[in-house]
Each structure stands twice: as C-alpha cells, then as structure tokens.
C-alpha cells in the first residue's frame, strides 16, 4: 500500500472522480440515467430511503446517479466533502441561502458580482425577507463593518464577472470566521483549476456549471460544494442544520451527517422542496466537459493573456481590466489566488464610448455576440445594454459595466484568429 496516502492530481480527478464503471452493466462512460424514479427493493427499503437511513435513489428531483457523479467530481476538484447539482448557478445560490437564512436575516455580499446575482440579491430575495448588505472588495474593512447580529453569511466571487476583479478570499474568510458565519464563494470564473477557495477559508463554494466547467456552451447547470469546515451547531444560528427537522421526524442534520451536513440540508430541505433539479442529460454533457477542464482552462488563460496584451497596445482602447497583466490593480491578488492564469473573462474600455462598443459587437465575425461566458467559442458582449441593463447607472459603474465597457470571454480558437477578428472589427 505504498500509494495509500497519495492524493491524485487535478487532471486525474477531472476524469475519474465519482465515475467508477457502472455496477450493473460495466459501462465505463457515465450512463445517462434518464429516469424520473427508481424502484425500491422492498417496502422496508423505501422507508429507509425516505427516512434518510439508507443511501440510495428515490426520485430525480432529490438525486440521480448521473447527477451524483457530477456532484462528487466537482466536490473532489474543489477539495470539499460533498456536492449538490442543481438546475443553474442561480438555483445554487437560492438553495444555499434557503439553508442559511430566515426572514429578516442579513447577508453581506461583495458589490463586485455578476449582474444577475446583484439582481437576485437586491430584488428576488426581498420576497423571502433575506436582506443583502453590500460591501466593497477593494476596501476589506467594509465587510467587517457590514456584519450585524443578523448576518448569516458572506458571499463573494473569487474572480468577479465581468471586470477581471480578483477578491481577497483569505482576508474576507478571516472576517467571516471572526463573525462566526460561513463564507460562500462563487468560483465560476476561476474554476478549481485556477483557484480552490476552500484552501483560503471558503465554507461553501457555488458554481454556474454553464460556464467553464461544462465549457462548451451547451448546458445550464449549477453546483454547491460543502467544504465540511463550518460548525453549524456551535452558535445555534442555523436551525435547518442544528435543530430537529419536522420534515424528517425530528432528525438533526448536522449531528447525523457530520461534515457533509450542509450538502445534505441543501438536498433534502432545499432541492426537495423548492425543486430546481438538474437534468441527467445536462449532467452528462457537463461531466464530459469537465474531463478536459485542465487542458481547456490553461488554453483559455493563455489566449486571454495574449488578447489582453494586444488590446492594451491598441490606440482605440482606453484601458484593459485583466488581472493577468503586469501593473493591473489585481495583479498581486491574481498571482496569489490564480497563479496559473487570471481566467478568460475580462473587460476593456473603448475610447469611442457607448457607440464604439455597439460598433465593435456588430462588426466581429469570429466572436459571438451573446450573454454567456466560458464557451469553447470566443464571446463578446456590451454589458451596459444587456447583462447589467437592469442596474442603475451608478451600479453599472460600480460593477465594472459602464457604457464604454466591452466584455470578452476568450475561447479556444487560435489566438491569431481571435486577435485578427478584433483588429478587423476595431478598424472597420
């Protein structure tokens, strides 16, 4: 047993974690279990499954073997204890907050977030009585000041969309620990290939699998990873985890499931009752994408750096916000948190302002003008008129999505072709 304590490398986990050959057929690729339900062995087995006394499959809204491979895969890549796959990144956030928040509770969130998250926090959550308090990742003390006795968690993105902002995860993690609340990190733009937030104090990691993890622009999905690090019972602040649950005849999830109780709470209280389950077919496509994550992510980053360097020398460009560039405000944080590359999504400003942005997105031929990121294909968007349109002008600027801003998601094409397309469109 010389290898007993050896932890496999990232590329090996990307291919193998969670995916043993199918026990009934021997199928080596993960089968798509496209079924709503699973037969019980007998009445007693059914009772055990419903009572969470046995591990197994009941109904695809609660769990599915194809989705389960995806859950274990991403949990292994992030270094967590368990995962839960859901229908989208947005669903992942709702399920996480549902496990933590009661009406009237607060959470502190970085104001540099994906515009869709800002909308979800500012508006949809109001109906649940979950109140967001914004803090500025460029001034860490604002997080500490935002903490109140009602605070239940802190939410940040590792690399923030759209503007190439790298968040100081460790510093904010220390504030969360001091406050006795979990740190939730959206790791969508970095992926665990570039950054593992759990190593820096994240208690929960959330993903939009739709982006680089799936990586091929073909499936929406989300995932929650439980780091297993937070003591849900210590301060009796999280009744979903530390109090007897009426849904399960008085079971206390934290004492029953230990260091993966949060993932179980998200599954059996959140996903079961709110319902945003992932399709097994989407899980299969995303799993196939993850097998090549380390290869793709490195190429995404290498291409992005080449494009950012080229843009930064162009006369039409006012500024380029890519943390991989020397002299960028976030270059030091990028070197610490994402040393293999600063991701492949970044923004730049056109000297010609709003009109030049519209002209550019209209003139490109290789770049696709659409609202996604993290595709094999290079993508371009003008956030002010699309993803961040619903924010106020002040919020747009705050989120790095002012009128002159163009966002790129650099794909896996030849970098010479990506640059040639931009050059042609800029000079047209």
């Amino acid at each position, binding site marked *: 047993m010389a290898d007993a304590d050896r932890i496999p490398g990232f590329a090996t986990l990307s291919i193998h974690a969670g995916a043993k050959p199918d026990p*009934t057929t021997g199928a080596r690729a993960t089968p798509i279990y496209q079924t709503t339900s*699973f037969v019980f*062995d007998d009445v007693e087995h059914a009772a*055990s499954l419903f009572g969470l006394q046995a591990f197994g499959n009941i109904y695809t809204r609660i769990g599915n073997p194809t989705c389960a491979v995806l859950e274990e895969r991403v949990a292994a890549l992030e270094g967590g*204890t*368990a995962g839960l796959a859901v229908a989208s990144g947005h669903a992942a956030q709702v399920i996480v907050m549902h496990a933590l928040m009661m009406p009237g509770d607060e959470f502190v969130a970085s104001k540099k977030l994906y515009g869709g998250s800002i909308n979800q926090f500012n508006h949809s959550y109001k109906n649940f009585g979950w109140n967001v308090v914004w803090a500025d990742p460029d001034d860490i003390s604002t997080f500490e000041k935002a903490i109140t006795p009602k605070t239940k968690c802190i939410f940040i993105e590792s690399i923030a969309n759209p503007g190439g902002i790298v968040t100081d995860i460790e510093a904010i993690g220390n504030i969360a620990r001091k406050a006795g609340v979990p740190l939730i990190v959206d790791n969508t733009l970095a992926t665990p290939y570039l950054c593992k937030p759990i190593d820096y104090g994240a208690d929960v990691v959330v993903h939009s699998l739709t982006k680089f993890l799936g990586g091929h622009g073909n499936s929406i999905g989300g995932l929650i990873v439980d780091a297993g690090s937070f003591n849900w019972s210590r301060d009796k602040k999280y009744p979903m985890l530390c109090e007897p649950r009426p849904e399960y005849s008085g079971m206390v999830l934290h004492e029953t499931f*230990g260091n993966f109780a949060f993932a179980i709470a998200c599954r059996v209280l959140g996903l079961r009752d709110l319902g945003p389950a992932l399709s097994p077919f989407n899980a299969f496509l995303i799993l196939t994408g993850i097998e090549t994550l380390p290869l793709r992510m490195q190429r995404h980053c290498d291409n992005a750096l080449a494009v950012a360097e080229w843009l930064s020398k162009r006369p039409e460009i006012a500024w380029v916000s890519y943390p991989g560039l020397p002299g960028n405000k976030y270059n030091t944080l990028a070197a610490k948190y994402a040393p293999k590359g600063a991701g492949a999504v970044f923004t730049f400003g056109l000297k010609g302002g709003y009109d030049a942005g519209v002209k550019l997105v209209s003139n490109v031929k290789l770049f696709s003008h659409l609202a996604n990121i993290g595709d094999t294909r290079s993508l371009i968007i003008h956030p002010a008129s699309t993803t961040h349109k619903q924010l106020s002008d002040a919020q747009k600027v705050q989120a790095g999505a002012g009128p002159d801003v163009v966002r790129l998601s650099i794909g896996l094409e030849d970098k010479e072709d990506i640059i040639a397309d931009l050059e042609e469109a800029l000079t047209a």
Partner: protein
Amino acid sequence: MNHDSYPDSYIRGILNTVKTVAMVGFSPKENRPSYFAFKYLLERGYRVIPVNPGQAGKEVLGQKIYAKLSDIPDPIDMVDVFRGSEHVLPIVQEALTLQPKPQVIWMQLTVRNDEAARLAEEAGMKVVMNRCPKIEYGRLSTEISWIGVNSRTLSSKRAQMYGKGVQRMSLGPKEETKDKN
C-alpha cells in the same frame, strides 16, 4: 495510529473483519444517529448488539438490548461508542475486561478521547475516533456517492453489489479501491 486521518485500508480492514458490534449509547428513537447506524449495519450483515441501561431487556429490530458490555453473553469484535468523549474511558476499561477481548474500539462522529485510545491501543486493539461506521461503509462501498459525497476513492473496477436488491453495495475485495486520502 494517527487519529486525525486514517488510511482507507485501515478502515476497510476493520469493516471487512468484524462481525459482531456492540453499540454503547444506542437510542431506540428512530431519528437518532445511533438508530441509523444500527439499522444500516444490521442490513449489511453485521450482528449489532444495542447497549443502553435504560432500555435493557427490550428488543429493537429483533436485537435484545443489554445494560452494559459485560452483560453480553457472546464474543464482541467491535465496540461502537455513541457517548460523549468524556464517557469513553470507562467503556474502554470495561471492554478490556471482556473475554475474549474485542479487536476494535470505534468512537462516533465528534467523539474523541485520546487517553482511552492509548489504553486500547496498548492492549492491542485497533481504534477509530470521530468517524461513523455507516458513513465509512457507505463511502468505501461507493453507496455514499449516490448522495453526492466525495468518497475520496477512484477505481476503474466495478463496485460490488451487496446481492440483496439493487441499491445496496458491498465493500468488495480489499484491492478494489485505490486509497487516496
């Protein structure tokens, strides 16, 4: 033994060897973790003997409850402790008086008593602390992967079915799973 991190081979070896488990601190309430573990291990073919002085003489799932370890008439391979860490030492001391002596002292999730562990190890027993045998069985048999838990195992071999129904897996032969924790 380093009690912060156990090799999978150590845990698998214990679960593949023991047959009779005495469960000290057993609760007959169906929503308690000890009842979960009790029922699960019974289903996986272990003989599990519940120990609880307040419930002695009653039967649960066909198993008679005993007041204390020394009341159990049959040999015990493993003592599984569902009591607070501060209560473990006298339980180990009592286990050491049994003939034959149990091979394993297992302390449940959140239960850890290094003094009791040292005493048991000096007497040649194997010790596991702050783990649940149900979770470890589920992890090493791959069943736990169905609920998204990181089993921390990789294998290009099929997991072995337990042979009773389709949703039960067994630990299988020892070389099936490559350890990686």
